[in-house]
């Protein structure tokens, strides 16, 4: 029996950001979520113990890559999960394929992971830039806000978001009236906000991430962008960030997410457990880690081995079902299809309790949210 499991253990490595920009929305919380998933399996699968290890990739691709290699070569790790930061994720994707193991990305954004950089060994779990663009673009225009101005972080992530969202907006008969590329790591956005304010757009979209998004939102409130009739849309915003900014600054902002803690009994139950451990509600990244670990262990349980090809095959054949994902599927390119939601941040008056932040605007079904296979540039798909 133990022959089916390499080194008699199932070893999962959480490669995450413990010290950088993303450490609040992933980091220790991701590790906690993974631990919860393992606990829910009783710590073992078919009698084989499950072991979790973690490391900080420090947002350096080479540190991430060398950790991944060492994990696979020396520590006999079977799967790597989480991996916020696209550069690290892309490197891990390559190495995982080379070593024929499993990588499930719940935190990076780049849609290349299931596009031109797709491999048979990688799954992109929670969301990607394509989904953010499409869900937001479609749902916001459908809600009647049809002229857009983009404030875009001047790097690949921002460019991709602006390009994709813009395309959707125009395809929905909306209009992009302007955009400005904002240099990275610049704390002052007032100049760009002023340019946005001067434009006739109804929507000011933030194609930004992390600290940039936070400062932009804070300064938008300062310059009264909301009062002057602009709707702010944040293309990527985690609940930890809304919490940090507070409702006075964030009220009215629209955002896309695959998960919010207060959606139904199951999400509330999980989130309550999580909250007790971390004193914060889970972000969608962290919830995604739980789902990824569970799905992986389920597949191992079903097949009785941790050999990557078998496990990958089973994961792709089995529908994803947990508190967060309803009837999700893992596509052949590694893309997980799930429903996505557009939320709006409540006003301080609407918020009844701590962490009561979002109200649902619209939900978008899985098949509309993600890039269809027909548009995919994943080599795995073309071959077929």
């Amino acid at each position, binding site marked *: 029996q133990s022959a089916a499991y390499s080194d008699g253990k199932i070893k999962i490595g959480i490669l995450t950001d413990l010290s950088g920009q993303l450490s609040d929305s992933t980091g220790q919380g991701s590790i906690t979520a993974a631990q919860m998933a393992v606990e829910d399996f009783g710590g073992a699968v078919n009698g084989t113990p499950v072991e979790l290890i973690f490391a900080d990739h420090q947002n350096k691709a080479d*540190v991430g890559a060398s950790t991944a290699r060492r994990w696979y070569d020396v520590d006999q790790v079977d799967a790597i999960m989480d991996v916020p930061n696209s*550069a690290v994720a*892309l490197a891990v994707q390559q190495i995982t394929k080379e070593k024929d193991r499993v990588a499930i990305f719940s935190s990076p954004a780049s849609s290349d992971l299931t596009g031109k950089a797709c491999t048979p060994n990688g799954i992109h779990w929670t969301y990607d830039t394509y989904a953010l663009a499409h869900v937001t673009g479609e749902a916001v225009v459908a809600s009647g806000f049809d002229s857009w101005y983009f404030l875009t972080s001047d*790097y690949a*992530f921002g460019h991709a978001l602006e390009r994709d969202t813009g395309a959707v907006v125009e395809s929905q008969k909306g209009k992009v009236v302007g955009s400005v590329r904002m240099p990275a790591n610049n704390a002052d956005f007032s100049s760009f906000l002023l340019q946005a304010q001067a434009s006739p757009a109804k929507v000011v979209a933030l194609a930004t991430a992390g600290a940039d998004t936070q400062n932009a939102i804070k300064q938008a409130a300062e310059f009264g962008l909301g009062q002057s009739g602009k709707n702010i849309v944040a293309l990527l915003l985690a609940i930890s960030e809304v919490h940090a900014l507070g409702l006075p600054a964030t009220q009215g902002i629209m955002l896309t997410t695959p998960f919010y803690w207060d959606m139904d009994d199951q999400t509330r139950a999980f989130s309550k457990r999580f909250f007790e451990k971390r004193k914060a509600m889970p972000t969608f990244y962290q919830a995604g880690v739980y789902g990824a670990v569970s799905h992986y262990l389920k597949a191992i349980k079903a097949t009785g081995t941790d050999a990557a090809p078998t496990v990958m095959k089973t994961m792709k054949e089995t529908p994803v079902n947990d508190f967060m994902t309803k009837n999700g599927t893992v596509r052949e390119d590694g893309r997980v299809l799930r429903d996505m939601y557009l939320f709006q941040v409540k006003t301080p008056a609407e918020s009844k309790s701590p962490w009561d932040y979002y109200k649902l605007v619209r939900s978008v079904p899985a098949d509309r949210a993600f890039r269809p296979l027909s548009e995919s540039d994943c080599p795995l798909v073309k071959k077929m």
Partner: protein
Amino acid sequence: MTMQTRDTLHEGIVMYGGSPKILLAGAGLLLAVLAPYALYPVFLMKVLCFALFACAFNLLIGFAGLLSFGHAAFFGGAAYIAAHVVKVWGWAPEFGLIAATAVAGLMGLVFGLIAIRRQGIYFAMITLALSQMVFFLALQLPFTHGEDGIQGVPRGTLFGLFDLGQPLTMYYTVLAIFVAGFALIWRTVHSPFGQVLKAIRENEPRAVSLGYRTDRYKLVAFVLSASLAGLAGGTKALVFQLASLTDVTWQMSGEVVLMTLLGGMGTLFGPVVGAGLVVTLESYLASTSLPVPVVIGCIFVVCVLLFRRGIVGELLHRLPGKGNR
């Protein structure tokens, strides 16, 4: 190296690398050859790449007295070049490395022409400014792929003979590159050129009055250092099969200063020891919950306050007899 017997006067006068150092180097080399059987090769290769980088940096600060706070530009910039020509243009790895070294050398020439006439903190600041521009380019130019970097660079076959996909082959290649780079630095330090460089570091106006065009010497040293930093960066790109923004940030420039300082500025082996320690520490700390920057910061502070000579420098100082200079 042949060491003719000299009369006693010469013996006392000439502070020249004696045989103990050669022995030490030999022992180190032997260890390095055997190391991959005991330690993880990727880790060792990373150490070697950074060691070469730190040695190149040290050539400038330790032997020419110039603090560059922008060396990441050469290291990271060359990594992009190597990654691009190997991955996209499909060049063989050896040509990739040559291209990386050459481009870094060229960048060094440009940086040098602008910065070399300034001294001390001004020099540090100009190099920093220039490297920030390189960072900006790395973020903006299409071929670098922004924050995603160039990924999945094939290691290829060296000289059409050695498959670098094999970890050990790759390791020995990296070792060979390091040894070659290190030997060049050693030779440079102990060459007629190295003598002039030292003189300039000690008293530049005097060197001018002796008829040396000091700017040119400093420029040559700068280009040499940049090229070797580039060679290190290009090699690293092949080892990790990627080139990313991390390597062009100013924090990376700071890190190489730390390595050199920790090991011992102006000593030949210091940077190697320093690089080994810092890389080990970083990979060890990655899987603990200790905050990495705090630990690194503490080391920095302790070094500056208590061990300014660095580990190797401190050892040489305690050892009886002459120092390393």
